[in-house]
């Protein structure tokens, strides 16, 4: 960013010349900036000048000759030109050709300049985020943990939560982090002396009517209930208590006879009857005492379970609705004032389950976790120390993601010795040794170790060992496996053929699914669906399982594009999606029966991401669509030209008052755009959102606006003057500029892969990748490989600037994300 003020400018100039004197680069090698300076004079300098400093940019202080010094500003300018964001709508505009020519000239210059001044950027000390932590724990110890229940939320930067610079450590984090290490190591080893503990598992969310539907994974012929995994610390008797089965003052659970069953790994271990005339009488005549009598049947149910992780199911045997007073349809819309009508249905439902145990621990059976950890087991006292060393060295190597040095194992061995002595068993010693590995900053942090003699400001290739971790955290969001470490330790990973083969192997591994659930979900912001709580007065058939179905659909849809190694443009265009009955009914697509998802060919308007319920709902409000949210979403996520946030003090716009005629969203936004200060951005944002107006806030197709009672008008004029009408036209327009979508996708993928925000000096790399992969039709793997092979990925550079530099020095204003 060009700094305001003459002295500062002078300072920069002096610094600039000093740098030039140091480098072998001569003026002859400096590429020329061929943009039409005259266009700037005509259209831009009126605001961006050294009097007004609009946006902190003054083109009259800049020159074509020194354009390299302002690379950041030019990258920003290209985004503004591509997006039609500048000059603002309503101001005199250069024609499309001039606009494109200038952007192209700037890109050409910046690409050449970047090639002559390579800067791979720097990854600062990178803390594991909580997803990566959970993946690492699963890899190391074979224990699946819910990271959200163990560790605090990670800050996001740009779209992602794996950005090194913002992954800070707070006392709260450390506190939870140490506790988590203790918890997961005890869980993994098991505890033959486990004391009796209470664990709670919340049942399905409200409303509970859809406990009438079969839950995926539970035995056929059951309906409702819940299924979850739990790791039991020891063999022994555990007692189950199921809460909330019968209503107090309502009739659920007691009216008709039902059978509740408990399953462990799919096998029935308990069943008992619930409801029917006797129970109904008991509640009717004895009130609370009757309820207690029924509840007691499902309290402290003893079940013998072996140590380790098991899948626990609590469910009801399906009964014929014809023989009961139950309603006949699958879910009940809400009624009245938006309250779920719990009282109107009579079947049993459960609120939560409590598992208490072991009552008396009876040792620890062999579990997958223990098999993973105990690569040896001592038969004599003399074997203990060498075996402990073997176990801890194996896990430490995986945890620290590299071959070990002598000092690496000292802490773990000390902890082992202490635990062996105090805990009185080999297992207790190993648990403490594992604890020592997991609390270590060597596990918590990733880094790029500079080779001896590295000079700040000079790129260096990262070591094969560091490359292995960078690769695995990119493709698996977790640590490298033994094979990758082996190849890296042998010093072969940087060889192009080896690297290529490893990337392809890793993409085939199921762990690469994190590219869908971590990368794509964060990019598309569909993890946030729970934030949208649709107004159930307006959308009576909304239930939480619809939200889950949206997530599954988009997970399978994106996963298919990645796994089948298709062109990423298919993300916009594919007419193949994945539906179950619930979602197909919602989309009005016939002939899809049952709870499981399968591939379905959908009508054109539902092609690609623009037709996905998850995207359409994530960009709506509780009670209506938002053309602003949707327009801004498409601009940001798909086109890479995000609009500015609204300025402070935005004037209120007249909205329809209650009791008067209701206006369409279009009419309200038109009133808003009548004000020039609003029009500057909304003229660009709104037409995109309006093109999607045929989808309601839950992503269902509609022809009429229900507020206004008028037909939907989905027409509008995009920033470049193209007239679009509806989602198909919008999508076609985007596909005809596919490289813009691919560039945005690549920039996001690269930011996620690097674990840092993109800087202006990364953008030439992104453009290069888009150019190079065009011939391969932008296949997913070709984009991944191009990123992995980029200097930004394979090199690092210690920055010249140190922290404490003046405010603004680390500004990301030119970053595309």
């Amino acid at each position, binding site marked *: 960013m060009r700094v305001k003020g003459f002295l500062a400018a002078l300072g920069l100039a002096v610094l600039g010349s000093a740098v030039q004197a140091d480098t072998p680069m001569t003026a002859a090698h400096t590429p020329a900036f061929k943009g039409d300076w005259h266009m700037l004079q005509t259209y831009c300098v009126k605001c961006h000048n050294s009097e007004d400093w609009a946006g902190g940019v003054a083109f009259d202080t800049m020159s074509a000759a020194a354009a390299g010094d302002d690379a950041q500003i030019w990258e920003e300018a290209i985004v503004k030109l591509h997006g039609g964001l500048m000059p603002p709508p309503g101001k005199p505009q250069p024609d499309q050709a001039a606009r494109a020519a200038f952007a192209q000239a700037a890109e050409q210059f910046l690409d050449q300049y970047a090639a002559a001044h390579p800067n791979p950027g720097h990854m600062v000390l990178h803390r594991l985020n909580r997803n990566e932590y959970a993946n690492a724990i699963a890899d190391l110890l074979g224990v699946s943990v819910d990271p959200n229940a163990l560790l605090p939320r990670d*800050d996001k930067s740009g779209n992602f939560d794996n950005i090194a610079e913002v992954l800070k450590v707070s006392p709260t984090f450390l506190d939870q982090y140490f506790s988590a290490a203790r918890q997961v190591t005890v869980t993994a080893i098991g505890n033959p002396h486990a004391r009796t503990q209470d664990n709670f598992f919340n049942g399905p969310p409200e409303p509970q009517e859809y406990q009438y539907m079969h839950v995926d994974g539970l035995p056929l012929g059951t309906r409702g209930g819940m299924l979850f995994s739990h790791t039991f610390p020891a063999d022994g008797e555990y007692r189950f208590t199921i809460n909330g089965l019968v209503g107090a003052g309502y009739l659920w659970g007691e009216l008709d006879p039902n059978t509740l069953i408990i399953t462990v790994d799919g096998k029935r271990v308990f069943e008992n009857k619930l409801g029917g005339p006797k129970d109904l009488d008991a509640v009717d005549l004895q009130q609370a005492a009757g309820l207690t009598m029924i509840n007691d049947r499902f309290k402290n149910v003893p079940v013998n379970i072996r140590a380790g992780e098991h899948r626990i199911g609590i469910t009801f045997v399906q009964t014929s609705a014809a023989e009961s007073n139950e309603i006949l349809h699958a879910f009940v819309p809400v009624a009245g004032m938006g309250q779920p009508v719990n009282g109107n249905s009579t079947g049993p439902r459960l609120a*939560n389950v409590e598992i208490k145990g072991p009552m008396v621990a009876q040792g620890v059976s062999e579990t997958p976790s223990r098999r993973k950890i105990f690569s040896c087991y001592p038969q004599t006292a003399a074997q203990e120390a060498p075996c402990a060393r073997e176990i801890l060295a194996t896990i430490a190597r995986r945890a620290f993601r590299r071959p070990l040095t002598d000092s690496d194992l000292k802490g773990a061995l000390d902890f082992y010795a202490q635990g062996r002595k*105090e805990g009185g068993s080999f297992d207790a010693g190993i648990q403490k040794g594992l604890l020592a590995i997991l609390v270590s900053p060597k596990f918590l942090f990733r880094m790029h170790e500079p080779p001896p003699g590295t000079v700040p400001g000079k790129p260096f290739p990262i070591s094969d060992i560091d490359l292995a971790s960078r690769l695995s955290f990119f493709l698996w969001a977790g640590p490298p496996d033994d094979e990758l470490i082996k190849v890296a330790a042998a010093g072969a990973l940087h060889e192009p053929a080896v690297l290529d083969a490893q990337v392809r192997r890793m993409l085939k591994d199921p762990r690469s699914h994190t590219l869908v659930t971590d990368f794509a979900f964060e990019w598309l912001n569909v993890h946030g669906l729970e934030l949208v709580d649709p*107004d159930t007065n307006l959308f009576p058939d909304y239930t939480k399982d619809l939200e889950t179905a949206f997530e599954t659909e988009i997970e399978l849809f994106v996963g298919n594009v990645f796994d089948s190694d298709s062109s990423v443009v298919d993300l916009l265009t594919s007419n193949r999606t994945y539906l179950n009955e619930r979602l197909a009914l919602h989309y009005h697509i016939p002939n899809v029966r049952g709870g499981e998802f399968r591939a379905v060919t959908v009508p054109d308007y539902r092609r690609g991401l623009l037709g996905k319920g998850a995207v359409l709902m994530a960009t709506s409000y509780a009670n209506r669509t938002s053309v602003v949210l949707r327009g801004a979403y498409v601009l940001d996520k798909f086109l890479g030209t995000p609009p500015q946030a609204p300025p402070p003090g935005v004037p209120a716009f007249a909205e329809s008052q209650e009791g008067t005629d209701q206006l369409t969203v279009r009419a309200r936004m038109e009133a808003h755009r009548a004000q020039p200060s609003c029009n500057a951005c909304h003229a660009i944002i709104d037409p995109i959102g309006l093109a999607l107006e045929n989808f309601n806030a839950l992503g269902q197709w509609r022809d009429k606006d229900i507020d206004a009672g008028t037909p939907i008008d989905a027409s509008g004029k995009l920033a470049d003057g193209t007239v679009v009408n509806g989602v198909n036209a919008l999508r076609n327009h985007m596909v005809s500029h596919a490289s813009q979508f691919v560039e945005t996708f690549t920039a996001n993928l690269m930011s996620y892969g690097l674990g840092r925000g993109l800087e202006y000096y990364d953008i030439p790399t992104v453009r290069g990748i888009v150019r190079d992969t065009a011939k391969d039709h932008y296949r997913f793997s070709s984009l991944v490989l191009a990123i992995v092979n980029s200097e930004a990925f394979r090199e690092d550079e210690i920055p010249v600037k140190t922290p404490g530099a003046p405010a*603004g020095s680390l500004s*990301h204003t030119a970053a595309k994300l």
Partner: protein
Amino acid sequence: MFITKKHLSRRTVLRGLGVSVGLPLLEAMIPAATAIAKTAAAPKPRLGFIYFPHGAVMDKWTPKTDGANFDFPEIIASLKPYQKHLTVITGLENKSAIAAPVHAITPGTWLSCVPPRISHDPYGGITIDQIAAQKIGQDTAMPSLEVGTEERGGEGSCDRNYGCSYGKTIAFSSPSTPLPMEHNPRKVFQQLFGQGDTADERASLLRENASIIDLVRSDAADLSRTLGARDKVMLSDYLDQVQEIQRRLEKMEHQDMGQMQIPDAPAGIPAAFDEHMHMMYELIALAYQANLTRVASMMVAAEVSNQPYTFIGVNDAFHPLSHHANDPAKMTRLAKVQAFNTSMFAKFIKRLAELPDGEGSMLDNSIILFGSNMSNSNLHDHYPLPTAILGLGGGRLKGNQHLRYPDRTPIANLHVALLNKAGIPTEKFGDSTGQLTEI
């Protein structure tokens, strides 16, 4: 993790129908005279900083009359029983929150009064709760407690230039260290009371934690040898946090909780939002009472919260409703939401008023700031900020006042005054131009 939970009493709350989780009420759990109450001869003030997003409908917040015995408009009506302890302040502004991304920097500047740097790598200002934590929080196990109710706000709480840090928390322990607001009551509870059941186990965990500290120090020293300057700074940040954990451990070793009956841990995050909010207030009260902390910060809802308040009959999502476009019907519903938020706060105040502390009540000895860093949510402006103080700070605050200051007096002037009332001599803070001596 630090100290252990006492033996669990029989769960009662969870037996109820339809209630998924619950923290039992404190009064049932804690004998009236605790060890803390007895030993606190001259109690130090408890400080609270309770933030609500999206400002207030100001004519339903601001009393019409000034001075003592002022009136109570709708949004603050539930605070009427505590008028003797209440100071309402009108006319304040926070200039540091004025910038394009609005919501993304509003929470993080409330208590710092420093405009944040445009950067994803956060750099703003230290917040007054954390200044207090560093000055008067060092003799409790936790210098401060930060809690919230929603893990994530809507889209606008992040910004592509400013990142997410300033939009997700009101507490910064240094300009570059945002502190997360923990929203899971179970995790907060474990942070306060730890894992484990017996005194032996507690002692053994304490010893183990001391060894962990030594271990991570030595491993960090190993790492440091190979790091560049920038990364060394990150690592030294990490070591500072380790140091803080060590200090807490040492405090915890000397903490006597023998008299206190500790309630059951909450099972998780309650499904009902109002219950969740209530539970977080309860945890703060519990932490004050057990003398585990003197400083607490809370966001009652996330910035850009899209929470619908259906339990009071408001089905609109909170944030879009806050852009009410001056539609009287919407403003009525918004005020209802805001009055509800105040009423939950009032319950917390009631709890403090009922807890004995030294000669008086916990409320007598507290200074609780309740407010927002936005005024009219429809305009996204930061003047006049809805601001109230509860508690008398052990007699250092007057209470029963509605103070009206000249337009656009910096809220930093209030922060200076609050720090002084808390016994932390302060002359200048953020963009302060003096201090509000009248409180």
